[in-house]
């Protein structure tokens, strides 16, 4: 244990914390870690930061390739390799804690796990999710059992091995961190060099193959980068939570942008930041596993991105939907008013004459199934934009409002006529079907509709409604909705 602590916390700041039973009193030690005055801490944090960046980049690719969980299976499958490497080395009298040896064992069993998944997926009827579940749990279970064997062994000290499970930056030496940094930089270089090729692989494997790109080799390349990041990350993040660093930054980044290189930049930044904060906290409190800290920090990023993300965050989507609903409400309102006005012309008045008489809210209530509150809100908003003007006995359309209402009604009826003429929708259903889609008609589609219906010699200004729009009918359909 003492050996491990010495080796682990070669940095005196960490040594202080470990020996100090009350770290909170030691402000000097805190500032030493936080300001990274100590060489070892600096190197460790740097290594972890580069690892976070590399994970963000590789993770973006695997997320878009829908292989995100492959990294999880890989990291879990590395445990038996670590334990076996320790056991074999110890029984042969070598240093069981030699990091290259442990990582070698981890790589071999991790790859074996991935290979098993591929065999199960390709040779049986089982799908990838089942294969992942089987391999992940079986390998991890075997690893836990072997760790139990390790604890029973007389030779060597198994202490410190559990750092691979949950991650422990506090027990990392500068040399370990350098290894992490070098491998991570290699992976970052690989991601940047193969950006175009991997992007094509993730988007359209078939086209990549048709263009002569070696799809299998590219897949292997991507997987190799996942393996590299995962294996060197074991010590810092731990095998249980390594997947978080691969998935969360990339998933969080997706909420902020629709451009792939921006997404990867964001993912790398979030991964780096999460790793630095997580690594620092773990260096301050050796009792706190760095893996858990990194995950917690990353998950804060994720939550914030999910809510506030400017591209597809929850709030943005909510606002978009609200705006769409309001637009639809307005279109319904204006069309309802237009149809009310139009009904009056049946008694001989011209449309412009009948437009001047106000329309009551009560008469609109019967036109469709909208709540009074929603209707009043739509009227208020329309009044604000000066499309309608409120009067003592109801309200009437302004001239801008009338133009807009006529346009909307025309659009609705063109669509109805199209549905009747070409989609063979029954006249009695056409109003509802047209409602479903008219709000999203693009101008070019309206042009086409006009052309089509022109050939049919139908009137183009505001055509007559193909179905009855008088009050009693509106009541009937209103009830149905």
């Amino acid at each position: 244990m003492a050996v491990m602590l010495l080796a682990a916390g070669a940095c005196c700041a960490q040594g202080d914390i470990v020996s100090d039973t009350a770290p909170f009193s030691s402000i000097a030690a805190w500032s030493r870690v936080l300001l990274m005055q100590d060489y070892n801490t600096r190197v460790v944090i740097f290594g972890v930061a580069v690892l976070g960046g590399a994970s963000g980049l590789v993770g973006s690719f695997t997320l878009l390739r829908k292989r995100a969980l492959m990294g999880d299976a890989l990291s879990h499958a590395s445990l038996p390799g670590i334990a076996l490497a320790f056991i074999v080395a110890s029984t042969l009298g070598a240093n069981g804690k030699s990091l290259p040896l442990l990582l070698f064992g981890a790589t071999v069993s991790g790859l074996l796990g991935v290979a098993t998944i591929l065999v199960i997926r390709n040779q049986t009827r089982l799908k990838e999710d089942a294969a992942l579940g089987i391999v992940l749990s079986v390998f991890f279970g075997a690893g836990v059992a072997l760790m139990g064997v390790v604890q029973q062994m007389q030779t060597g000290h198994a202490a410190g091995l559990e750092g691979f499970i949950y991650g422990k930056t506090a027990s990392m030496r500068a040399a370990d961190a350098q290894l992490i940094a070098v491998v991570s930089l290699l992976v970052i270089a690989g991601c940047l060099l193969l950006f175009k090729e991997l992007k094509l692989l993730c988007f359209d494997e078939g086209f990549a193959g048709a263009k002569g790109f070696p799809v299998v080799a590219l897949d292997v390349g991507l997987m190799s980068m996942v393996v590299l990041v995962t294996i060197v990350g074991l010590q810092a993040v731990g095998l249980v939570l390594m997947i978080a660093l691969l998935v969360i930054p990339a998933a969080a980044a997706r909420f902020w942008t629709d451009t792939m290189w921006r997404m990867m930049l964001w993912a790398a930044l979030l991964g780096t930041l999460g790793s630095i904060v997580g690594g620092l906290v773990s260096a301050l409190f050796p009792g706190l596993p760095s893996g858990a800290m990194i995950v917690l920090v990353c998950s804060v990023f994720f939550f914030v991105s999910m809510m506030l993300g400017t591209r597809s965050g929850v709030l943005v989507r909510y606002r978009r939907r609200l705006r769409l609903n309001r637009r639809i409400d307005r279109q319904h309102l204006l069309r309802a008013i237009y149809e009310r006005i139009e009904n009056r012309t049946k008694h001989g008045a011209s449309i412009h004459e009948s437009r001047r008489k106000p329309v009551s809210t009560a008469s609109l209530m019967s036109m469709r199934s909208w709540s009074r509150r929603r209707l009043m809100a739509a009227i208020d908003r329309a009044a604000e934009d000066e499309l309608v003007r409120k009067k003592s006995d109801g309200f009437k359309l302004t001239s801008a409002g009338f133009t807009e209402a006529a346009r909307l009604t025309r659009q609705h009826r063109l669509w109805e006529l199209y549905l009747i003429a070409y989609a063979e929708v029954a006249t009695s259903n056409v109003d509802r079907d047209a409602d479903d889609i008219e709000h999203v008609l693009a101008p070019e589609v309206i042009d086409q509709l006009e052309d089509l219906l022109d050939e049919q010699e139908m009137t183009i200004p505001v055509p007559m409604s193909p179905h009855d729009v008088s009050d009693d009918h509106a009541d009937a359909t209103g009830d149905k909705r």
Partner: protein
Amino acid sequence: MVERPQKEYQPMDSSPSLSSVLPSAARDDGTGNEVPLSIYDLTVAYHRKPVIWDVGFDLPAGQLIGIVGPNGAGKSTLLKAAMDLIPSASGRVRVFGDSYRANRHRVGYVPQRESVDWQFPVSALDVVAMGLYDEIGWCRPVRRRHRDRARLALQHVGIGELADRQISQLSGGQQQRTFLARALVQDADLYLMDEPFAAVDAATERAIVDILRDLKKRGKTAAVIHHDLQTVPEYFDYVVLLNMRVVAHGPVETTFTSENLQKTYGGRLTLLDEVTEAMRRRESSL
């Protein structure tokens, strides 16, 4: 682009060449044009179940070819096997007289629209630029001149103004046009298209037809998987009727007959189907 020397003539009755022994592996259709796609005895199976069986035909150069057949007839499989995307159990594919590998730069591929995730964070321009990736070369970035060409290709299919839009923001027809532009941007000689007309709006359908006719005018060949029988005579010159094997192939006027369609789509099992069915039963009982 590598120019292949054109043959002056094809001696049909001199020393027996490969093409006279294997008529379907011809390099030349006898008129001086290279055969864009020649398939001989192609069989593809998924898990012991044949999808296409003993398929063979030569496509005429410079024509618009419709590949027609019922669902599950193996139309997409045929295209994919022709491009080595899936392994074939037997058979030979020749593209302009050589392997697909040697001539793939002369082939433009339009996969099915549903084959990719349209939520992917790329713009229409990015997708079209993918058609130039092999030309750009490994590890090299997409440069302005490539983007300019991609933009031109998008304009050619009529959606130049949507170049910078994320692909999920495009309508189905616009997505299909983007895929088409990706194949057009590389200026191939043979285009293989997997259901480009599936679920597109009328305007896109017309645009695609115009593009196909323009390709033909420029001497290109296009083999298009098509599902709307009514428009086949209008859109295509040549037709391949496929239902696991080639039922018939030839010019639309002579081949696209109700009798052949009956054989392709008809409910009655033909002899080969019965054999296959019997073999399947035998396999499953083992």
